[in-house]
């Protein structure tokens, strides 16, 4: 199992996580993914990559450091994004009843291992 697959495996084991993927932040392209049916990994990678890029620029403009974790809450769940080294982002698509706290811990821990 590659390091990327091991990371995705840990994140997707958290209850309520419908899929996880690693994407290139600058390109918004999928590097590795583990998704349930119906989750569009390509769209998640492109949009999350763009979101993180914009947030980083906004934070920079305000004299703050780039965000270490982003939760985008929507009606039917959330998208969690953790920027990683090497211009990667770890993304999780979670249901509304997911254990977001645990998912966040796993993602931050996993993100630090991705190098």
């Amino acid at each position, binding site marked *: 199992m590659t390091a990327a697959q091991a990371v995705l495996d840990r994140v997707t084991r958290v209850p309520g996580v419908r899929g996880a993927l690693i994407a290139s932040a600058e390109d918004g*392209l999928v590097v590795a993914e583990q998704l349930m049916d119906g989750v569009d990994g*390509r769209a998640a990678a492109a*949009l999350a990559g763009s979101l993180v890029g914009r947030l980083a620029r906004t934070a920079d403009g305000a004299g703050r450091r780039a965000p270490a974790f982003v939760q985008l809450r929507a009606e039917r769940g959330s998208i969690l994004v953790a920027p990683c080294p090497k211009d990667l982002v770890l993304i999780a698509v979670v249901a509304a009843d997911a254990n977001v706290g645990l998912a966040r811990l796993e993602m931050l821990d996993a993100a630090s291992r991705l190098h």
Partner: protein
Amino acid sequence: MRALEPWVEAPLQTFLAESSARLTLLMTSSGQVVAQHGFSRSLDVMTAAALGAGIGASTEELARLMGSSRFEALVHHGARQSCLLAGFGTPRGRWIGLVVFGPETSVGIVQLFFDQMVQQLASAARRDEPAAVRLPENFEHELDASLKALFGR
């Protein structure tokens, strides 16, 4: 933004808004311009279309030679701006899209919304039946005089 036919406008407008592309050119596979955004000179658009269609045609031939189906998209990464070239089928024949974008967006975003535009174009084309080409009645009559004026002989 300029489009050859009105039904192309809405899908292209959505794509431009969502993708943050700098330049976009839609052309037929023989290099005729269908719609464009961002070019300031119509003659430059024609040149870009000729080159885009040439690249599209040669990569398709290359794919055929290698026994594979078509390449879906070709991306050139540049230091300041990048370029996506992708062919797609429409009810009006095969078209090619050429998109130039900068670091304010990403290839993933451009590809995502490009694919969405392709779907929207397909359904818009089906709703809009092609009209017969009709030129003014005096077109042929004026042609001789115009050619004489244009070529000065």
